[in-house]
């Protein structure tokens, strides 16, 4: 369960309704400042709302961290074409599980954020593109949307204000690539999920070649809070240039993995020690993936004194990304980590461009061979070399996402690769944990023979 009891070190802005009884219901939402922001927004000019967003220093929470106010101002609001609102809920980055909670516990907050976007852009329609694996979240969102329609918070001429807005959910079909905004739009339009050539950016030519405001779930969900508290006050929660709070998804070898909301600039070690409850089994920290599997790996030494914000992480040549923090302890086999990451990207490469399609496939095969004990000294050089040949040369950032962690692992943990050559493949660890999981599953199903032990890398 990624949601834990609130921790005192958290600053709960967008997660403030998490954990309330029946938090997904309109009733609970209305009792806690529900749809107050849209009421306030309707009394403001669109430009004033964008100015608030700019003042809030809110940056895109999907991973790229582009300033949201700026992005909103890029949408040609005077265009004669229809404008659309699109929510990227294709949360697929390994290590990231925040949008899930936002939709599960507070769907109306997201709807409200979209409505504000709709008001600013003069859009009448919005969609939430939810990854296919989040089937149950689609149901939750659909229920929330139905509630909002019945309470006249969605539909035409809402509460007589003259503002009309409609929202529908749209299911993805299980492709990581469709989290890339232009591929998402292609997929949304019913085509193969491959990225588009940019420019034009979706702000100018998005869904059905119309101006489209496309943001992450967390970004939209933050907008109501910003309007209510004021941009400057929100910005003040964080540090300069990285305004406000961010959901952190702490996973890996910690005692209390989960999603926590912290102000930007929060110290990383505090996040691990306090929020995450410290390292599991008292082990030592070896490495941290700071913002989802595509971010370059950080060593324990680099994490020391590091704060979690866009600029601090850029300084150590990594990224805050989506806030998917994966904590790895001293027993972790980094060669296997490299393989596991590459297996993911190889499986998710869309096949459009050559370096990503062939590079990830080659690297996966190479790393598999290496892990099985058939590696050579030249392979170590080649792993870094191939990843660098992908980096910056692919059509979309998926190739970079595969290359960056690989390059960082080979550079920072090269010794482990040498060990493989010297001592052969390492025994797999964490069997205990897997065995426990299996026993739990067996107890649940009550049938012993049905589930074979499945070794995974």
């Amino acid at each position, binding site marked *: 369960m990624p949601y834990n009891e609130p921790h005192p070190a958290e600053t709960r802005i967008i997660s403030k309704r998490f954990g309330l009884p029946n938090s997904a219901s309109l009733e609970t939402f209305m009792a806690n400042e529900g749809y107050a922001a849209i009421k306030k927004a309707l009394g403001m000019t669109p430009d004033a709302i964008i100015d608030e967003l700019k003042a809030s220093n809110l940056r895109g929470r999907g991973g790229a961290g582009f300033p949201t106010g700026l992005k909103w101002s890029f949408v040609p609001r005077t265009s004669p074409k229809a404008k659309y609102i699109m929510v990227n809920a294709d949360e697929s980055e390994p290590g990231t599980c925040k949008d899930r909670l936002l939709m599960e516990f507070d769907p109306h907050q997201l709807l409200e954020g979209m409505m504000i976007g709709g008001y600013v852009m003069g859009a009448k329609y919005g969609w939430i593109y939810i990854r296919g694996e989040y089937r149950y979240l689609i149901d939750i969102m659909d229920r929330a949307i139905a509630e909002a329609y019945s309470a006249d918070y969605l539909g035409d001429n809402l509460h007589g204000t003259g503002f009309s807005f409609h929202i529908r959910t749209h299911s993805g079909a299980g492709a990581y690539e469709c989290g890339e905004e232009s591929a998402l739009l292609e997929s949304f339009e019913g085509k193969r999920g491959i990225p588009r050539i940019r420019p034009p950016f979706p702000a100018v030519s998005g869904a059905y070649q119309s101006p489209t405001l496309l943001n992450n779930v967390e970004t939209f969900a933050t907008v109501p809070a910003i309007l209510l508290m004021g941009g400057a006050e929100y910005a003040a929660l964080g540090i300069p240039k990285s305004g406000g709070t961010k959901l952190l998804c702490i996973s890996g070898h910690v005692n209390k993995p989960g999603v926590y909301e912290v102000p930007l600039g929060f110290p990383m070690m505090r996040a691990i020690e306090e929020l995450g409850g410290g390292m599991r089994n008292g082990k030592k920290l070896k490495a941290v993936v700071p913002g989802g599997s595509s971010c370059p790996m950080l060593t324990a030494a680099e994490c020391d004194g590091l704060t979690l914000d866009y600029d601090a992480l850029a300084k150590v040549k990594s990224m805050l990304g989506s806030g998917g923090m994966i904590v790895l302890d001293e027993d972790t086999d980094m060669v296997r980590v490299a393989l596991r990451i590459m297996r993911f990207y*190889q499986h*998710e490469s869309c096949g*459009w*461009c*050559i370096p990503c399609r062939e590079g990830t496939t*080659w690297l996966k095969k190479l790393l598999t061979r290496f892990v099985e004990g058939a590696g050579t000294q030249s392979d170590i050089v080649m792993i870094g070399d191939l990843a660098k040949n992908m980096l910056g*040369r692919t*059509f979309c950032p998926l190739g970079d996402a595969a290359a960056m962690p690989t390059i960082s692992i080979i550079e920072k943990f090269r010794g482990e690769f040498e060990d493989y050559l010297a001592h052969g493949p390492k025994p797999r660890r964490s069997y205990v944990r897997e065995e426990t999981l299996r026993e739990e599953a067996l107890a649940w199903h009550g049938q012993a023979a049905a589930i074979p032990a499945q070794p995974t890398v």
Partner: protein
Amino acid sequence: MPDPVKLTVDGQQITAEPGTLLINAAKQAGIEIPAFCYYEGYSLQAACRMCLVEVEKAPKMMAACTLPVAEGMIVRTQTAQVAAARKSTLEFLLTNHPLDCPVCDKGGECELQDMVFRYGAGESRYTETKLHVDEKQWSPVVFFDAPRCILCFRCVRVCNEGMGVGALGVINRGAFSEIAPNMGDHLNCDECGMCVDICPVGALTSGIYRYKTRPWEMEHVSTICTHCSNGCKTTLGVRNDHIIRGNNRDRSGINGEFLCIKGRYGFDFTDHPERLQAPLIRRNGKLEPASWSEALAFTAKRFSELKANNALFGIVGSAHLTNEENFYLQKFGRQVLNTNSIDHQRSGDVVTLLDALSGTTGTLAKVEDFYNSKAILVIGADLALEQPLLSFQIRANFRHRNAHVFTVTAKEVREDKISFRSVRVQHGEELAGVEEIHAQLLTEQELLIVFDDSVKGASLRRLVEIGSSLPYAVKYCCLVDYSNSRGAVDMGVLPDLLPGHKPSETPGLTVEAMVTSASLDALWIVGADPLAGAPFAAEKAFIVVQDLFLTESAKRADVVFPSASAYEKSGTVTNVCGEIQQLKPAIRTMGTKPDLEIMGLLAREMGVAATMGQWVSSKVFAEIQSQVAGYAVPLPILSTGGAAQSMPVNGRIPVAEHPELIRSAHDNLFTSGTLGRYSRILNSVLENPRPQ
């Protein structure tokens, strides 16, 4: 016109029109930026990443195929970083490529081979297993070998955008991505082979070419397709007097690289086993093989006797013959056999159009006008199936220039998909449809009207009136059926018109009249089949037939001469737009002679060689140029493989209209009268409507 943009590529100052893609701007300056997926005329992909170049101030290398030039841009294409990127992209490409060049059809003309040779690494570092997928056959003419595929998506685009068919797509993901046909395991499409042609590697291969030869073992002969009237250039690959392949990779003709199934694959009638290879003479009621000298002497003797008796000769020319042959034939008839009963099967009312146009500002369209005209009105015809090149040009025009396409047809046509306005009419009421959109036509800037045999005679005159009422010059194209249907009219293979559309003083019999006239004494049929399925009235008439096959008419003949096909002779043909192009002989088939030579030898046997002149196509063409108005085109254009449009007549043609004689066969891509019946490939594709 906006000012050109100045930029620097590899230290060289170049200028380009604003909006030009960097890859093209560099090409214009003679700097090659390699690419697989970029293909001029089709949508941009930026998928292959071969064209990455360094652009100053850009944080990383940029794809030149999607980057428009900008003022002051500084580009470097020859740096170590660029070279390394190209090398690594090719290395990546080869990881799952089978490297079976020694047995691959494409070996020797493969873009991947060329690229690796030029930009690739000397050695492979790849030691893992390769993905393998078995080869698939999608149709009699298209095979797909997925491991060779580099996923440049050219085939998908040419099928979707170029052909308007969209029979190809992509399935699966990542390295398992594969091109797939529309019917799951096979294709249902135009079978044009454009996908095979555009494939840079040997992934898509041609059903009739595969494993036959290596490219460098063939001779390549550029000639004109003999099937429909579009006059596409097809480059025939010839080995050992067999045509193995047709394509137009060098884009040298009016068709660029376009070819339909007929031009690309429909040449195999030339070595059909039923091809006639010796003259036949009827003896005791049976056609028996004879020597050329015997058959020529026999025919000449009979012709001379009949001529001496003032016999009535009927002569049927053909829309498949060259201009020279048709000219020679009508001259033979008119000057030696003293008859004006010379005709051919007409498929479009060219004569009425030319007459109606005289005195107006209307002109005849060229094939390139179908690409250039801002508006096009299609009347009657299903161009995609009947006039594939014109249809291809219209689609390109729409894609690149957003042309306004109007269709007035009885049934749904492919142009409807891109049309500005479509009007459905009852067959025969096409003009009413044109009247309906008249107001909309008035707002256009220019117009090209293309019509088939549904508009002829009086309705054609009315169409020209409508065209003349528009506030701009209108171009016309009267659709005809076969490779030289237009030329046959110009050459005067008509009972009432001499060469150059000069009226004859004493009109002779039409084809229909010849067949039904009991008073006919002799019938000379060259390359046509007028007796098929028709009762022939003049039972005693002496019948001579020249053809490739034993047609229905040939079966009733007294003498049959085996002709050479259009791929086996020289001469010129005039396409649907009046553009004259030259044929080049690609092969020879034993025992056959070109029709011109057969007629010449007959003239010699009859002792009229002096009257008839030399039976060499260049000499006859010189005579045509002096006699046929509009054919005085520059010879260098023709001899270098170009197309020269004949000049319009520009004067009245005072002859009676015979709209009832104008009938198009409306052959589609997979049928074409006689030749198509003997093409195994045309008959083998499942789209062919005839039972196989």
